[in-house]
């Protein structure tokens, strides 16, 4: 196989009669920043759910680094090196910002390890580094629920970086942000992508234009188009289903 870190073949998901993903073939190369586009209900989040192990697919195979991870439990998939961000910021609300990141640091996941683990200065430095990176170092001692929406999104990204995964799945990290915060987030993602493989679901075309190099457009559970952003945007079909060029404009 080529340098594909993620290889999905024939992935199908049906939920009570509805086909969410329909015989999907999809792959991501190592060290790539791939943007996943698609209108509501196209199956973007479902795809992320399948890869990260939240739900099991009806059929099909998901290979990560050429190893089958289809239908594995989330914590096992995490161990292989995949970490996801949720659409709605998802963190440990009452823990401090510092602890949120600390708990996400790579390694030490077993009960026995947690029981006897002592935090080293190196761990602490790493957490401070990450907090610097996401710009929350001054708020390290605050509980996560005292943060603003944008800050919460960044904190969750910081938690992902702390886990140092091989593949990051970012599900609409700019949802509900102001324009300014969106730009900050885009910058963050850009810097994360320098070191990690990133699969990003994004709606906001400004952010996509800034980040997107290679994009995949999902539509009704299948891939509609894939390629360089400029090409995809120019694609007539994509324009029709997604970019708001009215279907009946020619009529």
């Amino acid at each position, binding site marked *: 196989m080529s340098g594909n870190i993620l290889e999905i073949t024939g992935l199908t998901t049906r939920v009570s009669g509805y086909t969410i993903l329909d015989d999907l073939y999809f792959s991501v190369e190592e060290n790539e920043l791939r943007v996943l586009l698609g209108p509501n209900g196209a199956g973007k989040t479902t795809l992320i759910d399948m890869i990260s*192990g939240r739900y099991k697919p009806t059929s099909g195979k998901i290979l990560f680094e050429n190893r089958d991870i289809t239908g594995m439990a989330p914590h096992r998939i995490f161990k292989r090196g995949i970490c996801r961000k949720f659409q709605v910021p998802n963190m440990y609300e009452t*823990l401090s910002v510092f*602890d949120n990141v600390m708990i996400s640091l790579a390694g030490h996941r077993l009960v026995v390890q947690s029981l006897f683990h002592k935090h080293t200065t190196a761990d602490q430095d*790493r957490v401070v580094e990450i907090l610097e990176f996401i710009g929350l170092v001054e708020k390290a001692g605050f509980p996560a629920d005292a943060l603003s929406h944008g800050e919460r999104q960044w904190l969750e990204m910081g938690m992902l970086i702390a886990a140092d995964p091989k593949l990051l799945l970012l599900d609409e990290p700019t949802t509900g942000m102001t324009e300014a915060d969106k730009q900050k987030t885009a910058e963050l993602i850009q810097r994360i992508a320098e070191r990690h493989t990133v699969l990003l679901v994004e709606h906001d075309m400004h952010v996509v234009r800034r980040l997107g190099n290679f994009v995949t457009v999902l539509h009704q559970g299948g891939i509609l188009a894939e390629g360089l952003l400029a090409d995809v945007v120019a694609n007539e079909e994509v324009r029709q289903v997604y970019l708001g060029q009215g279907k009946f404009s020619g009529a």
Partner: protein
Amino acid sequence: MTTASAELGRARFTLRREPMFPLWSIFGVAAVVAILATYPLYGTEYVMNLLGMFVCFSIFALSISLIWGFAGILSLGQAIYFGMGAYFIALSLKLSYAAENPTRYGGTIPDYMEWNGLTEVPAIMAPLMHIEVAIVCLLFFPTLLAFIFGVITFKRHIYGVYCAVITLAEALILQEFIIEYQAYTGGFNGITDYETYNNMYFLWVILAVAVLLFGTSRLLTHSRIGTVLKSVRDNDVRAEFNGYEVANYRIFVFCFASMMAAIAGGLYAAWMGIVSHLDTGPILSIEGVIWAAVGGRATVIGPFIGTFLVKGAEFFLSQQLAWAWQLVMGLLFIFVVKFMPEGIMGTIGKSIAMGRQRRAYAESQDAYQSGPMAVVARLRAAFTDGNRGFMDNLLGRSGRRD
């Protein structure tokens, strides 16, 4: 990212973390323990009885606090484990008491067994006569039951309300079981009339165990595993996707708390001299939940304060204010739930921590924006921190132009 920026981070922000055992808390605990331990020397026996009982109940409430407040598992059947511990010890004491004090009819088996037509102690119970065996059983079997329960429920992602209902049902089943098999358990009347350990020395034993378990709990909840448990409580989905096998953590804390409840039950049986089906049932379980909630379920000291306050008020008010004490208790609960949802200690602790954090934040902002060290830090960062513009660092701007 450079190490310099990490250093800068440390300079700008020093993490305020409470020590594991703050000095004032050590002195506080020592003072309280000293008062309780010497009470029998100058106090009445009646109050001494109550104190020993309250401490046992406090340990029980602490076990509820551990699973509910710290790990988010609401069990309405924690008294199962308390009761199991109590029955092991009561049975053991009763068996050895009966062996030495023949009944009216000359038997050397517990009186209730005789009434129910048994002629000798069932073989399976006989070893319990030795208190050592009973203690080992007390430590082992409740933990085993908790483990089995944990594997069945938590591994299948059953928790929250469902878990509460299942544990409640469990408590009812055990209660029925005890009443039904009265030849072995003493049935509705329970086990009584055995040699009790109701003196100052045993009060010291109870206190020592309480302090030990208190310390262990504090250690547990304020180390890495405590943070993981809290994260599981806050957001188990996130924890799962963060690589933690949530079920294992739940099983661990559930087993630990159950063992603790069993120990409390054992002490209680030896102290009180009577154990009945009520000590395993849902009422005691829910009372325990209330004690933990009033004191502060996500604190280690809270359950002790909650138990002493609620239980103490119960005894005091039922004497002084016989006509209205239940009304007063009800108002107390409403007050706590309404105005202190985190419990007494939880609310106090939270406001202290938040104030400290706000001050630290304000200080760090001041120190960063003025003062000689800030200039040095900025200069150094200006040359070393490549992530931001030189001038941004120098002027302390965020550097992100929006």
